[in-house]
């Protein structure tokens, strides 16, 4: 007996939110319907097999114009690793200057992706020193 499953995935690539139907026979994808772009098709296929997300968070920045700098993973990571990475990044401190695209941590937790800055952080003397 072949196992026949249809899974519904709401695409999160863009705000459009397409409802994509993925049909599987014995765990193998046989059809994908309802997507509006190739990125959506790829997302739905991955979401059914092994869901991944890009993590976006912040890390501390000492003596910067803002006390934190925003970062993201350079690519999607398994969904169940999000909290683990976030917890790890809570202990990281960086120093300005930081520019968009700077690698903050290479190959974070051996997941094969880097943590990169998404916002610049420039040195400013004492601006937020009362918050240290």
């Amino acid at each position: 007996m072949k196992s026949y499953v249809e899974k519904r995935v709401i695409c999160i690539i863009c705000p459009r939110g397409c409802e994509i139907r993925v049909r599987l026979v014995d765990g193998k994808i046989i059809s994908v319907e309802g997507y509006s772009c190739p990125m959506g098709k790829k997302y739905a296929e991955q979401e059914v097999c092994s869901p991944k997300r890009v993590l976006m968070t912040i890390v501390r920045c000492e003596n910067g114009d803002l006390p934190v700098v925003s970062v993201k993973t350079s690519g999607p990571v398994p969904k169940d690793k999000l909290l683990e990475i976030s917890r790890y990044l809570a202990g990281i401190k960086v120093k300005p200057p930081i520019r968009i695209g700077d690698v903050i941590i290479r190959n974070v937790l051996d997941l094969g992706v880097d943590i990169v800055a998404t916002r610049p952080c420039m040195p400013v003397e004492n601006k937020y020193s009362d918050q240290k």
Partner: protein
Amino acid sequence: MNKTYDVAVIGGGPAGLAAAIKTADKGLKTVVIEAMNRLGGIPIQCIHTGFGLHYFKEDLTGPEFVYRFIDKVMDRDIDLLLETYVEEIINESMMSKKIKIISPKGSWIIESKTIIYAAGARERHRYEIGIPGFNVAGVYTAGEAQAMMDLYGIMPGKKILIIGSGDVGLIMARRFVLEGAEVVGVVEILGYPSGLTRNIVQCLQDFGIPLLLRHTVTEIKANNGRVSSAIISEVDESLNPTPGTEKEVKCDTIIIAAGLRPRTKLLKKMGVLIDPRTRGPIVNDYLESISVPGVFIAGNALVINDYVDYAVEQGETAAESVHEYIENKGVLSAEWRKVIPGSNILFVVPHYVSGRKDVVLYSRVSRPLENTYFQIGGIGKKIPLIKIMPSTMLRIVLRKTELSKYIGDIVVEAVEK
């Protein structure tokens, strides 16, 4: 300080920056007036992705998106006034506006031929959505919480209840969980979420956060001046709390994510007419106020947009309009045709079209609809919509050729098949 600008852009967010880049490129003397001590506006604190998919065809975070515009502004001959608050705009004449400003350097008046008003939106607060009670510590709007966490690195609380399912609230729910807080739930009074579906999926479902539809908070309880719990009730068809359904939920922080309103105080003061549907200004297809010539409006100050890309598009349209306005000493007169929101339509922007150029209509439906046609009367344009929610903004381009097919008011409707 005694120079007259061609255009004064009020607001240094995406719409204002995009407008300023374009007016400067057209050789217009441009000044950007920004109340904060930095350019970029709200996207600086929006560290999530989803920005720029339309404009750059890339998935960027808020800061990455807006820094592309900041860099372009820095490369151009654009005057910048930071930490500068606009107190009043005075419409002297068609080609002269006076802007009263206050900054740490003092208070003075700037003169400009035209205005691009891109001052964004404000958040709705608890009293606007009928959450009564004393003003206790621990109640924040979603945007305030976002600024605290993602600009200044301060956690607003540990056990959080979110009221309203607007996008910023959903995005903050995920941020709270990632930073180690517990989100006890998202309470939404309507039967459907007001945020985008993708945010329901990736911000709530991914982290197992409950979404309570048809519920409201009827009381916020406090202990020593700090939120300690909330009373949640189910609501009936007319959105009134149903007695006997009250539940007490423990939390130390309440986030109000009840959506945005265009910031229009300065506009109203100078006589700009406001559309009660969008709560933004009434504009023609040049994005010019219909009551105050030479005042152009873009971004969330015009209409609450889903995508930053639309705010940028409006900024660029306003910039092109300013260029034409200055060349012709005013927007050329036209047989203005009214755009009328018909059945199932919450609003349409712009409110009048000239028929002289292609026009982009921004619209929302008034309730969730399935198997619908979005149709534009007279022109005979029909767009099928399989599923459409009020949270999804519709963007429809009407070509000049389509507009010339029919003379008369343009009725926009969503009609079920």
